């Protein structure tokens, strides 16, 4: 049926007005279909109440020096560590070539910054260390004050983190990440 009404344009033939209408209608239907599908897809994303919990405020006044507390943020554990001067000194003495992951992984600073102690601690106060407590290997929660580097130890597959939450040995590829963080006052922080 190679008559004038055919949608098939033969080689060298000019596309007809009808061809144009076919393509335009098809494209319009495809775009409309995509719009109709989007709500079905997007409903799977975190809902408003989950997103509303995107930030959390914590009172840190009663976290004593040397103590680590765990709180929840977005359903994940957050470690808040009040470091002793000795721990800070120890961490500062570590050179970058001792670190399997030399990048800071700190959401508050330049993503390319290196993993020196100063880039891991809270910007406003180096005694505070705030970390997402999820092992960067396969997502277990590491145990506090354990392992060969005095920071954390993940029992699942044996990852050792130091007092700045940096991976030192084991299968985890990255340092424990520092979440977005803000000091509201000396004793209150906001995470997220």
């Amino acid at each position, binding site marked *: 049926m190679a008559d004038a009404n055919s949608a098939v344009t033969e080689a060298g033939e000019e596309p007809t007005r009808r061809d144009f209408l076919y393509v335009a209608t098809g494209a319009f239907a495809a775009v409309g279909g995509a719009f109709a599908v989007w709500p079905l897809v997007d409903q799977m994303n975190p*809902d408003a109440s989950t997103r509303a919990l995107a930030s959390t405020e914590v009172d840190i006044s009663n976290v004593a020096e040397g103590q680590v507390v765990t709180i929840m943020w*977005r*359903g*994940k554990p957050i470690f808040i560590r009040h470091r002793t001067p000795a721990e800070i000194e120890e961490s500062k003495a570590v050179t970058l070539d001792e670190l399997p992951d030399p990048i800071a992984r700190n959401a508050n600073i330049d993503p390319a910054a290196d993993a020196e102690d100063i880039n891991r601690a809270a910007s406003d106060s180096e005694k505070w260390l705030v970390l997402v407590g999820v092992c960067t290997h396969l997502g277990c*929660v590491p145990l506090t004050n354990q392992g060969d580097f005095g920071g954390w130890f993940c029992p699942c597959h044996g990852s050792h983190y130091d007092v700045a939450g940096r991976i030192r040995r084991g299968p985890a590829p990255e340092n424990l990440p520092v979440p977005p963080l803000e000091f509201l006052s000396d004793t209150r922080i906001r995470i997220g």
Partner: protein
Amino acid sequence: MAHESTYQPSNGFAKWMDDRLPLMRVAHDTAINFPTPKNLNYWYTFGGILTFCLAVQIVTGIILAMHYTAHVDLAFASVEKIMRDVNYGWLLRYVHSNGASMFFLAVYLHMFRGLYYGSYKAPREVLWILGVIIYLLMTATAFLGYLLPWGQMSLWGANVITALFGAIPLVGEPLQTWLVGGFAIDNATLNRFFSLHYLFPFMIAGVVFLHIWALHVPGNNNPTGVEVKDKQDTVPFHPYYTMKDAFALTIFAILFAYFVFYDPNVLGHAVNYVEANPLVTPSHIVPEWYLLPFYAILRAITFDIGPISAKLGGVIAMFAAIAILFFLPWLDTSKVKSARYRPLYKQFFWIFVGVCLVLGWLGGQPAEGGYVLAAQIFTAAYFAFFLIVMPVLGLIETPKPVPTSISDAVLAENGRSHSDGSSGGGGAPAGATAAPDRNA
């Protein structure tokens, strides 16, 4: 259906119905009079057993759903309530949780059967591919269902597996968030897993329908791998195979009952009777036994491959281990179907079975030291079977002589002469029901 219909409506109503919706005719031609090779052995009974397993999971599952509550605060307690308060709740739950294991046991035997007798080869490629799709849906269903009791292993197992999607470059993290519906596994995740766990078995039922349709177009393969040539090679499905299947199913049910009544938790993990706690990780995360080989492959990739990180490499290897089954019909270059007549392939087949078992064992060991190296070696062997052994063997192997027909093979086995075609005519039910598979 591929064979000629022999259905005779037995009364006026049946005739009237047959002219309008020939349901009875289809049932008769598929399940009663379907011409089936007369030499099928007990490895061929797992199809029926699998259908039974699916029915058991659907019936017990729908009942469990009447008593189960998909909410993070209530799910664990509702399962305990099923175990203690609901009349026969313990039975229904143990049948469902052990039923998943029995289902996988049957499907693995069914798949290895296909691998041994070359049932994936032309003209049954589509049949095989539909089977792999069923298997994929089964693993997804079992993974989704395992979150529902909201125990420690439920939570942390799902955590490890959904974290894998985070390894995909660029889209990984948004994809992971989209899948779990939050920033961690939580109520949203539990609800959607329940919804999908309810849905998937019915999708499986749909694919099973296509699978059986695709079986009945070329007809069954059989232990000789020789296609049916004429009526002498077959017996009607009923009563020969309905009885054989029923007998095998009874034996299978005894094993099933043993687990349900005498050792209902042996296949599970005690830590899953501790309620899920997002702050405490169990010291050793392992999936259910039927997923262990793939878990071993996942963890075997501990090194970066060019731009692919170790984590992503593990994910790719794990999915590839299943995906490779889709290509099996074209990876095997041998013209002979059955391993009975392939002396080298037969040996490699058993080595491959051993490789799968060892991978399963390794999947349950901690991922450290020698276990990692062993998992890497056996992962390599797993892929080598498909990518090297299958294509190369077909080219270099000299097969044994293949019988000219199923009938000949059966008669030869029973010590009667090959040329004596007339005495074997019509049925030889002995070959169908009694002869154990001596060569296999």
